[in-house]
């Protein structure tokens, strides 16, 4: 089953929509609440990131009996130093993002902690593609 959502740049009121809709679908599929929480936490942080830092993007969720693959692809401008961005506490967020309750440098680490596999393809000036996999059998965090 494939689910597709748009993420609009700068539209913080919309951030969380894809996660909310995905949560509904996973609940209907009787996936365990612990696994659902991991999925929606990772996806929600990714949505906030795209909304806050990019020119906009798309979410594609592919649900199978084994787990969920989530691809979050934006249209730029890329992450100049991925290692730095992955370190807890590092952030380039604006005051506006901080006022929304984010921007403390916990987004990407939170995504990493809630996924069973994570790859981030990015370059400065290009776009960023985050590919996540969450196993339905693994509820460890």
């Amino acid at each position, binding site marked *: 089953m494939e689910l597709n959502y748009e993420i609009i740049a700068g539209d*913080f*009121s919309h*951030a*969380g929509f894809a*996660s*909310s809709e995905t*949560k509904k679908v996973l609940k209907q599929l009787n996936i365990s*609440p612990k696994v659902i*929480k991991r999925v*929606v*936490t990772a996806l*929600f*942080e990714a949505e*906030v990131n795209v909304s806050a830092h990019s020119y906009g993007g798309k979410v594609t969720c592919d649900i199978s009996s084994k787990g969920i693959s989530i691809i979050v692809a934006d249209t730029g401008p890329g992450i100049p130093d991925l290692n730095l961005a992955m370190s807890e506490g590092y952030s380039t967020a604006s005051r506006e993002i901080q*006022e*929304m*309750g*984010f921007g*403390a440098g*916990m*987004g990407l680490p*939170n995504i990493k*902690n809630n996924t069973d596999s994570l790859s981030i393809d990015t370059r400065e000036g290009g776009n960023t593609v985050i590919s996540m996999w969450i196993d339905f059998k693994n509820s460890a*965090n």
Partner: protein
Amino acid sequence: MTLREVISICSGSLVCGKQSLDRTVKLGFASDLMSDVLTLLDDDILLITGLSNIQAIRTAEMSDITQILFVRNKPPTKDMISLAEAQGITLMTTPFSLFRTSGLLYAAGLEAIY
């Protein structure tokens, strides 16, 4: 403690979720940082926050948190209330600060997560 007791302890008021007043909550977490809330593994938490915006409701939804107490009388907007109602999240407000609210509820038996 019940949500009714939470409201009474911090001289608060109920915004939405009247049917949940007798629901009990064991744990409390006070933060304005939603990424921090998203790291919590426990459910059944009372989120105490000064962040009165739609992302607080979204964060609660993702974290399976079904009650939020907004401090310093920051009234939730109509959009926040309708999202909370749709998700079955009870919203409350208190005139007290985050510090005072947390202190009162902790002293009354609401447990800390960390």
